[in-house]
């Protein structure tokens, strides 16, 4: 039945997108926390943070975008968990469809929902004075990194959605991911941190991704950061996908 993979995924994607269209609050709640952080850091704390030339919002935005994705994927876990809970997941799995399209529809929905939230956050940043002279290729690269990062975290969310025992559990795994940017170069330069914290901050995925996006926005040459960032994203993606599929196969004969 794999010949129906694309049409089945399309039908199920349409279903989940309808869910999102009917509960736009999920997009709003996804965007609200990163926007609140952005307001807090730009207008309250940012004055005391030294990041060199340029407005602080320019420095801050890449990290905020990653926080947006980290908070958005908790809804992916939530939606998948609710499908498992309600029995509709089993209904789909007992039908003559391409079975994996049930998971892929959730993954693509996550991508669409997160991209909408990211656009909302960028629009707010523009209102707050964010400016970038980046050309089309740089924007293309930024979107590419964000899509890859979203996919990687989405497959983590699939693991959570498939294995959670409660609704709270399905969403809770995202909290550490939301906090990870705070111990990175997202808000302050890592050079200001004490030794061990700095060592952690400089060697965790968020810093390289944030630095790569920041350099692209600022039209500066991207160094090794972008390759480290891509390696992290692809690495997380492959591991999370493998684990998620293993759990999925164990659930479904």
């Amino acid at each position, binding site marked *: 039945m794999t010949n129906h993979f694309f049409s089945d995924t399309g*039908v199920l994607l349409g279903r989940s997108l309808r869910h999102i269209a009917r509960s736009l609050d999920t997009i709003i709640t996804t965007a609200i926390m990163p926007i609140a952080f952005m307001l807090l850091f730009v207008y309250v704390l940012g004055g005391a943070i030294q990041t060199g030339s340029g407005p602080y919002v320019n420095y801050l935005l890449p990290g905020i975008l990653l926080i947006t994705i980290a908070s958005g994927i908790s809804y992916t876990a939530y939606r998948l968990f609710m499908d498992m809970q309600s029995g509709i997941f089993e209904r789909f799995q007992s039908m003559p469809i391409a079975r994996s399209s049930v998971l892929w529809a959730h993954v693509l929905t996550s991508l669409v929902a997160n991209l909408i939230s990211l656009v909302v956050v960028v629009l707010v940043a523009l209102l707050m004075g964010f400016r970038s002279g980046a050309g089309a290729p740089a924007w293309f690269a930024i979107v590419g990194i964000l899509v890859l990062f979203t996919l990687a975290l989405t497959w983590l969310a699939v693991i959570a959605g498939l294995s959670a025992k409660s609704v709270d559990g399905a969403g809770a795994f995202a909290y550490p991911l939301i906090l990870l940017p705070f111990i990175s170069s997202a808000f302050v330069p890592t050079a200001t941190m004490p030794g061990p914290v700095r060592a952690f901050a400089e060697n965790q995925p968020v810093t390289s991704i944030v630095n790569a996006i920041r350099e692209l926005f600022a039209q500066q040459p991207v160094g090794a950061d972008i390759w480290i960032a891509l390696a992290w994203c692809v690495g997380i993606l492959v591991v999370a996908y493998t684990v998620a599929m293993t759990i999925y196969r164990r659930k479904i004969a």
Partner: protein
Amino acid sequence: MTADHVQEPAIRVRGLEKSYKELHVLRGVDFDVTPGSIFALLGSNGAGKTTVVNILSTLLKADAGTATINGFDAAAQGADVRQSISLTGQFAAVDGILSGRENLVLVARLRHLKDPGAVADDLLARFSLTDAAARKVATYSGGMRRRLDIAMSLIGNPPVIFLDEPTTGLDPQARIEVWRTVKELAGRGTTVLLTTQDLDEAEELADRIAILHGGRIIVNGTLAELKRLLPPAKVEYVEKQPTLEDVFLALVGSDE
């Protein structure tokens, strides 16, 4: 090929075993279901009825034994089995955020039917859901959800339907509605395997009844055969009191 399939039972189960860690739920289950008949799998909570249904609908793999549905092996020919069946699980598996009509159209699309809208409208009418068609399913009553659930299972006219405790949690009227639907289905030639812990339900619907107990089928026969297992009936004179259900239905009206 096809001629052979017609001769075979619609469902054939042989030596089915399944354990969850230490718990040995099925210890060698055997039964056959004749095409176009209603077969009731009776058992108390935790007897393994749902496990049997999940193996037959390819959601679970058995540890041992075979299950053949419509001539296809559940373990080796999963896709063909799924083409032949529909599963109505223990809890109405409907999408609460979509409307009733959207739920039906969704399933019709997934079954790759030509005119999903027409299929949906036809079933809405058949299950008296036309008035509620555009409403979100989250606002439906338990009986309406179950009706929609069963309607979704009929899309594509699968020859074999599994109903896992179809009337659990329904009020008497909704239960009678579901019973009527199941009888109609069998009347059209669909094979129905239903699980229940409600003895009245088995008595009302089933052509054959099998009791699953201790991981095995301990009896399997028609209602008359099962009754013959007990000592012959004694004639006693008992005042015929109306049951509470009779009273309830008389007061509320047995039709909607």
